[in-house]
């Protein structure tokens, strides 16, 4: 069984714990009940509430709220930021994971730690860091102004924040797979006359394909939902720098509950789409691994 396949399985939780290690039947049912109750309270109930509230006044008001120009522009901005974040982090993730697992160099540990930084730093702090780096008080602001490139309270800031918070997701998925694999197969290919990129395409990519896809799915999910860092950098310019989560916040703040829930339902649908894609990726990945 391949390393990435093991990973996929363990992520799902162990499906068949050995009877002797699992304890009595009572424990089993208590645990299952607790999990189900927990899931219901934390996940299913809120979801139902969102959908219920969104449609409470009927389909027409719902469609009106969803097709509001501000909402549409927020959806487009969210998708734009997500796509760009996924592309950038895929490229970066591949490079970083490759470098870390295949080469020996100084500062490797530091690089690994730095990659994890975005998940450990609070998104608000991350947003503030970018405001300080690119905002009015920064040293490079005059230069940015001269080329008419605004970061803070502009779309580039939103994208920057999104890329930052989703930074580790893809490299973190690929890294363990690459490390488990070692460099033998690449060396074998090199000895047979294969050169750099071909080795990557023919030997390395098949190994990390499923981990990479999984990382992309996670990255996309996280990018769509990002609120904290984006909120700091956005400036909440309606129709310009507002993403879906921010739009929800704005509507909520204006006491427009029904529209707020309607917009939330878009995010819910996107989340469900991602969940389905994730399951398909996992399913196919597992089947491939078992072959």
């Amino acid at each position, binding site marked *: 069984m391949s390393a990435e396949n093991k990973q996929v399985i363990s992520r799902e939780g162990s499906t068949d714990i050995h009877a002797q290690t699992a304890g009595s039947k009572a424990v089993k049912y208590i645990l299952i009940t607790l999990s189900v109750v927990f899931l219901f309270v934390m996940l299913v109930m809120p979801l139902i509430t969102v959908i219920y509230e969104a449609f409470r006044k009927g389909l027409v008001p719902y469609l009106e709220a969803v097709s509001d120009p501000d909402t549409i522009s927020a959806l487009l901005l969210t998708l734009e930021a997500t796509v760009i974040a996924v592309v950038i982090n895929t490229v970066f993730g591949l490079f970083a994971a490759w470098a870390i697992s295949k080469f020996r160099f100084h500062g490797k540990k530091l690089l690994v730690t730095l990659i994890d930084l975005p998940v450990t730093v609070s998104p608000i702090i991350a947003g503030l860091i970018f405001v300080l780096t690119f905002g009015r008080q920064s040293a490079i602001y005059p230069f940015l102004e001269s080329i008419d490139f605004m970061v803070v309270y502009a779309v580039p800031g939103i994208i920057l924040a999104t890329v930052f918070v989703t930074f580790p997701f893809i490299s973190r998925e690929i890294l363990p797979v690459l490390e488990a694999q070692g460099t033998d*197969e690449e*060396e*074998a290919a*090199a*000895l047979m*006359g*294969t050169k750099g990129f071909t080795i990557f395409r*023919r030997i390395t990519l098949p190994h990390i394909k499923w981990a990479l896809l999984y990382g992309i799915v996670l990255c996309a999910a996280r990018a769509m939902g990002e609120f904290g860092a984006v909120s700091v950098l956005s400036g909440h310019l309606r129709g310009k720098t507002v993403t879906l989560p921010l739009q929800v916040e704005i509507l909520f703040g204006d006491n427009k509950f029904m529209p707020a829930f309607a917009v939330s339902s878009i995010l819910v649908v996107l989340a469900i789409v991602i969940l389905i894609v994730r399951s398909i990726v996992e399913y196919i990945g597992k089947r491939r691994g078992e072959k």
Partner: protein
Amino acid sequence: MYIELKNINKSYGDFKASDNVNLEIEKGRLVALLGPSGSGKTTILRMIAGLERPDSGEIIIDGKVVNDIPASERGIGFVFQSYALFRYMTVFDNIAFGLKVRKMNKAAIKERVTELIKLIGLEGFENRYPSQLSGGQRQRVAFARALAPNPQVLLLDEPFAAIDAKVRQELRKWLKDMIHKLGVTGIFVTHDQDEAIEVSDEIIVTNKGRVEQSGTPIDIYRNPTTAFTSAFFGVTSELKDYKAFKSFDEVDEYDRAIVRPEFVKITKKSEVQKYKSSAVEGRVETVEFRGNSIEITVSCNGSIFSARRSLDEPAVEVGETVDVFIYRIFITHGDSVKLLKNNAVREETVVI
């Protein structure tokens, strides 16, 4: 010489993995790199293949210095210890890989791969993935994959390490025949001396990053030239005080006195001992059946060492007092070794 290493040095950090290595290998020979774990065997192999760069010294293959030629252009076949088969490719695609890289046409590739699959006796397994093969089958696929592009040099890193004894035996013979049949120059790494003796035309003994000795198996076995080789080859035991054994020349300074089982003759009290006057009494400590002989350890003059008796001879028992006669002893001093022969023996009749 077909392959030559001249004054090769290689360090990892401040650890010397290769310490002024010099070796020469003739075309068409199968050579064993033999040495204890960590002695730098893999390092030598990887430098010849171009997977590692020596810090200094020259690697010469077929008269050309190849130091600056990348691995992908050296045209060397390499069988990894872990086989490193491409796990997402079938047996067929694994073997075809090196041919596809060379842009050979499809029909020619199919023909060559089919020929190799036949050679390794895996017809019908073309479409299996490496994970669906046994260790021995994987080993053979790795071998075929390395041979597919017709390399002039084949390097094998502990090719039999992961295979059970019986299959290993078959594969060793198979490898030897195959290499000689194809006329390839081969170097294989092993830390099993039986394997080295059985398979190779020549053995290069490594120790602590250095080449200790090289030569034919029988030559190295008979005439070890360094202290390390004398103690490394064969089943060796050390004598605490060799001067307590009779009729040997005195050596003033020495570190160790080493005997091998075939240097020792054990006779029961009821048997005739030709050199009775030079024999000493010993006590049998253990008796073990070794398939084709009986291995006996005796304690004698404060030392414990092994000897053999044939199955035809009368059995000895644990605790029995026997006569022990020693034909030869290796005496080491520093890095050098000296062979002492028992003066009681006029004619050289020690059979190895």
